[in-house]
């Protein structure tokens, strides 16, 4: 009886989580007359077609926004790692209280509203010729991802016993060769997680993208513009392609998506 309740709950939540995705797939692969053009669209596949997708990818500009999103996201991931590793290593060596203070400050940065930052920055970016550019957008998105990356890396590095570093020093390793021979290989899963989480964030990011790069938009912004212009089928098709890699990444990253990372450093 008790178990039955659990299963009923599990099934209800499974449906709840999956139905919106099902609808998206339904619209993408059904002829428009069964979806957008009917008053009460059926909840199941009445017909199957690829023409929506073909039409969307041939008639609308997909590749440029896609590439822009891809480059921005990759740049965001790379910067997050390059700056995050030294910062995380430094923080992991600071005494606990000091490190905690730093992390709090970092995470405040992470919480400052995007609009508040983006509006004044857009003015500066136009002056600096960073407006609408890949590095410009990547830099601003770093505001959100870098604190998170530093936080994750700091946690990973702190998990390596300090004796291992002492041992490496005694064995004749300099700080640099300790980092490259021991710490980075040991912390690789955390580093990969930091990269992918940064990448995913940027891929999904909308506020900065729409404010700071509206002329050559990223994919989410392009999808939004398509909706605004009434090209709904294109938006759906793009959404599908846009979503799949992220869902795959999320599932890969599942074990890193722990409450404490997302809770932003507040340990329980």
């Amino acid at each position, binding site marked *: 009886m*008790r178990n039955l309740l659990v299963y009923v709950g599990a099934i209800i939540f499974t449906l709840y*989580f999956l139905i919106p*995705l099902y*609808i998206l797939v339904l619209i993408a692969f059904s002829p428009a007359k069964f979806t*957008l053009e009917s*008053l009460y669209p059926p909840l199941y596949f009445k017909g199957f077609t690829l023409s929506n997708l073909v039409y969307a990818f041939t008639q609308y500009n997909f590749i440029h926004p896609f590439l822009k999103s891809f480059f921005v996201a990759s740049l965001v991931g790379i910067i997050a790692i390059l700056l995050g590793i030294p910062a995380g290593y430094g923080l992991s060596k600071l005494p606990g209280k000091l490190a905690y203070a730093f992390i709090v400050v970092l995470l405040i940065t992470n919480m400052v509203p995007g609009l*508040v930052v983006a509006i004044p920055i857009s003015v500066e970016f136009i002056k600096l010729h960073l407006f609408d550019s890949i590095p410009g957008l990547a830099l601003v998105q770093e505001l959100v991802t870098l604190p998170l990356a530093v936080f994750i890396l700091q946690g990973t590095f702190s998990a390596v016993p300090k004796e291992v570093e002492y041992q490496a020093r005694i064995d004749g390793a300099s700080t640099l060769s300790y980092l490259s021979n021991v710490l980075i290989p040991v912390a690789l899963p955390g580093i990969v997680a930091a990269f992918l989480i940064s990448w995913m964030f940027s891929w999904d990011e909308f506020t900065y993208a729409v404010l700071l790069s509206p002329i050559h938009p990223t994919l989410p912004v392009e999808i939004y513009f398509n909706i605004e212009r009434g090209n709904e089928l294109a938006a759906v098709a793009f959404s599908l392609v846009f979503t799949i890699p*992220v869902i795959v990444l999320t599932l890969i990253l599942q074990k890193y998506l722990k409450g404490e990372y997302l809770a932003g450093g507040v340990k329980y």
Partner: protein
Amino acid sequence: MLAFAFYPSARAVYLSFFTSQGKFTLDNYKELLYFNLYGTIENTVILTVGALMLQLLLALGVSSILVREFRGKRVLSTISIIPMGVATVVAAITFSFIFQTSGGYANTLLHYFGLSGINWYFNRYLSLFIVMIADSWKNTPIMTLIILAGMYSIPRDLYYAAALDGAGPIKRFVHITLPNLKKFIAIALIIRGVSEFNIFALPLILIGYSPSILTTLAYSLYSTTTENLASAAAVVILVFVSVLIALNIKLGGKR
């Protein structure tokens, strides 16, 4: 890094007190009132509180299932984080299809039961409710992860002891689960609260500028009027968020 975040914030505050000609003024804030600032704040608060409550309820539901051992637990826990991988924009579009007044899937469902379709954007409360639903779908996973971490931290023995003392499942939930989760719930609410206050893409796509919330108002001012006016709206957001952040730090420091 810090300069990068705080300079623009300071700059926004600064801009909000000047005219576009560079003269000091309070007019920007006065002008905001013409754009229904109070109503907008009200909408924002309704949306934030409503979405948080909805997410919390859902997260408590999902977590209390996931904390048990049963066949298919891995499947559910995998499925339950999928919305996290769905971009906000995509979620927004999908929900706009579901809740379209003509040709929406929610109405199809009503139709099956012999009811007539509803205009889902009939009034501002209903519109905000649609945003809450879409937002909760997207963000329940994050809430769930935090709440679940909390549930795992409660020793099982407490439940056994309570069961031996004669407490049924509901009493156990009220007297053991909830009190022990208090801290986790508070943290989850504040952290999510900050993000909820900033939600932008979702309402923009689902309901546009009406009813407006603070972020969409700031954006529409940014694209139609001066930076100064938009900054003033941004500053209003900053004030609210700062309060939440301060709460967060205070709570974080207490642990």
